[in-house]
């Protein structure tokens, strides 16, 4: 019996020692539970967070949105632009020991293109097939000269390589036990609880990543207030996607700080101008323009987001090289809006706006409703949960819809699928063949200068077409414990764990 206190003491000491040994654990609070961890099937932006640690890509995107090789060592584009040859980094292994070679790359691209339900297929639509040149070289043969678009695609989930043998063995279950070639390997997942990854000892860049955390736990904490509390109490060391309303709370807290970056995404209203019977309201471009003119974007951003977001009117934010300064954010003009409605024969315009039950868009919709009322426009706010809204949008059962797009580093990813006549995300069935032509030319452009010129043309057309009204671009606010150093915020909102240091 006398031994009991000693035993209890030893148990407690062992527990505390275990606690102390876990100093190398970085805990990241995510804004929702990631979906499947299969890069081919993953869709949520949050899913990219663990995937970025687990699965290296052929390329990555730097903070200035230029490409940098990752699993690829370099590339060469054929003169006719119809093929791209990639040289792979030598000696790279997947987490199960398989080599990352040309066969593995060919397998992965084939998987992205053929796996039922693949969300990468459209991102690789320009690829005809992949040839293995030698063990360390692959050639992408393209249907259209869209090499630049392909390379940017390979810098996202389409470029993430999974271990072929593991993928074949696990089949549909691969997403719950991913095996890739990233800095960290998968340990376990408690759905909605946490995703645990630990340092991969055979990582190809191990020399550069020695000081990185030994283990990372991704914890889905969907409420930003709770995420913030968890950061302040030291429960997590990184809190992703805080809101402008959270910033004042961290201002006087010595335990945490905020870093931010302009986001690639945008919030916008899509007008149904061609999908089904309800397209009648916004078929006339003057009506679409009138609504656009009646909205004061700067007031929205100031009142709702403490001026922390950027008012916008194009599919890239005003800091982007592809933003066309010839068409700046328009000033509100109620008189012009009324005039346009008179000309269009609908002086008393009335329509419904579909809005998801999300705080930012709900509040914005109410402000827009009041702004439009001053121009004689009656806007009804119709709240629908995401699943219903998506279905109604696809069916054309809407007048206008309040949408959000998370954005892509290549401008094409922000526009083509949304606006092109056959674009899969073009729920309003808006169609301008001239615009399609310029967007395809931009896809095939071989230099940045040419691309900039072509996207200026795209903007000029959009400035007269008004298929959508882009309203604002978010900033991504990431909360960091003061124990974290080496964190660099990226415009694509994805946390790169490489280079992050954690003080005990």
């Amino acid at each position: 019996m006398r031994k009991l206190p000693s035993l209890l003491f030893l148990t407690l000491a062992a527990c505390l020692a275990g606690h102390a040994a876990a100093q190398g654990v970085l805990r990241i609070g995510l804004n929702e539970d990631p979906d499947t961890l299969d890069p081919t099937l993953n869709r949520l932006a949050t899913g990219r967070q663990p995937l970025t640690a687990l699965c290296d890509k052929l390329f990555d995107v730097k903070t200035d949105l230029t490409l940098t090789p990752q699993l690829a060592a370099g590339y060469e584009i054929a003169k006719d632009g119809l093929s791209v040859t990639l040289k792979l980094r030598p000696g790279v292994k997947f987490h199960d020991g398989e080599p990352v070679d040309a066969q593995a790359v060919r397998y992965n691209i084939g998987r992205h293109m053929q796996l039922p339900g693949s969300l990468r297929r459209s991102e690789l639509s320009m690829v005809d097939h992949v040839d293995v040149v030698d063990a360390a070289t692959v050639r992408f043969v393209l249907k259209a000269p869209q090499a630049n678009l392909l390379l940017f695609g390979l810098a996202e989930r389409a470029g993430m390589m999974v271990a072929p043998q593991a993928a074949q063995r696990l089949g549909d279950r691969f997403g719950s036990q991913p095996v890739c070639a990233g800095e960290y390997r998968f340990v376990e997942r408690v759905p909605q609880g946490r995703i645990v990854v630990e340092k991969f000892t055979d990582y190809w860049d191990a020399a550069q990543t020695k000081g990185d955390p030994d283990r990372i736990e991704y914890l889905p904490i969907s409420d930003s207030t709770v995420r913030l509390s968890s950061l302040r109490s030291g429960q997590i060391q990184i809190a992703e996607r805080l809101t402008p309303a959270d910033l004042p709370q961290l201002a006087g807290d010595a335990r945490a700080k905020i870093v931010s970056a302009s986001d690639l995404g945008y919030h916008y209203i899509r007008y149904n101008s061609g999908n089904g019977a309800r397209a009648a309201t916004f078929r006339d471009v003057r009506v679409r323009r009138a609504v656009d003119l009646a909205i004061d974007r700067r007031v929205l951003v100031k009142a709702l987001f403490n001026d922390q977001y950027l008012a916008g009117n194009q599919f890239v934010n005003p800091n982007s090289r592809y933003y066309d300064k010839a068409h700046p954010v328009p000033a509100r003009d109620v008189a012009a809006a009324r005039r346009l409605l008179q000309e269009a024969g609908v002086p008393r315009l009335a329509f419904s706006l579909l809005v998801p039950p999300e705080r930012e868009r709900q509040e914005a919709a109410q402000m827009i409703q009041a702004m439009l009322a001053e121009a004689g426009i009656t806007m009804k706010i119709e709240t629908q949960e995401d699943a219903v809204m998506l279905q109604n949008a696809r069916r054309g059962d809407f007048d206008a819809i309040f949408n959000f797009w998370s954005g892509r580093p290549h401008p094409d990813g922000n526009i083509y699928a949304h606006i092109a006549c056959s674009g899969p995300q073009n729920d309003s069935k808006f169609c301008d063949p001239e615009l399609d032509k310029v967007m395809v030319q931009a896809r095939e452009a071989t230099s940045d200068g040419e691309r900039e010129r072509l996207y200026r043309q795209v903007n000029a057309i959009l400035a007269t077409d008004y298929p959508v009204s882009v309203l604002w671009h978010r900033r991504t606010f990431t909360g960091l414990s003061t124990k974290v150093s080496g964190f660099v915020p990226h415009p694509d909102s994805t946390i790169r764990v490489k280079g992050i240091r954690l003080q005990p």
Partner: protein
Amino acid sequence: MRFLLFIGRRIALALPTVLILSTLIFLLQRMLPGDPALALAGGEAVDARMLDEIRHKYGLDLPVYVQYGRWLAGALHGYLGVSMRNDIGVSELLAGKLGITLQLALASMAIALAIGIPLGIVAATRKGRLGDAVASGLALTGISIPHFWLGILLVLAFSVHLNWFPASGYVPFREDPVRSVMGFVLPSIVLGTGIAGVLMRHMRSAMLDALQADYVRTARAKGLSEWRVVLRHALRNALMPVVTLGAIEFGQLLAGAVLTEQVFSIPGFGKLLVDSVLNRDYQVVQGLVLVSSVMFIAASLLADVLYFVINPRLRT
């Protein structure tokens, strides 16, 4: 023998209940607007072909009665399908969460019983006096305070400012027992205080009835001490309605505590249910309702067993 017959009858009655419930949930889900394939693809660039592939993969392209038949046949063999959202087997998903939900439910119930029953006894024995007023006030406060608000207050006080307990998250017991237990303290208090209030009200009322019964008067006349009368004679009889209520509350806890799980980011049944309904993850909702209803019935059965233990008259 009488006991076994009683339990057997209860189980026999429970089976059709579960079957009807599962059919209802299956049909209700199908009546919800929203295409699960589109919900799964989210706002991504998916064309009609890809949507068809998703529907085919998860059997959503089959007639509803075939889907139900398949699900039922699978369920009878212990296979509850696959989550569309993360391709994990539903049985595996629920098994992983069962422990978390049970831990939270047991801890909350322990707190509720530890507060509710003593307060109810105090209120009944001090009827009309200060003790009664204080106990009743506390019970009403526990019932009235919204869980969400209390949770945030506790986090601010005990996590952010005092740093005594973690603000959120779940740590498996095997990995770090201290952090695991600490993580359940605040959510259990939030859930437990609400239930404690309800238990206290019922305990008080049942005790008042018991304290006026003839056998209590007899016990007092025999010269037994007041505490012996209360704890030995009145309490045992007064516990019957509280056991029923406790079983119902416990059953509800097993079905998940949505708001509390949300505030503390605990990956239990409640959070899973809400997310799965929103994502139209049919198989998960179906499996979750089945398991929750079975657990609710099991909690009721447990209450029946307790009646037999508490009340010897039922055994004869």
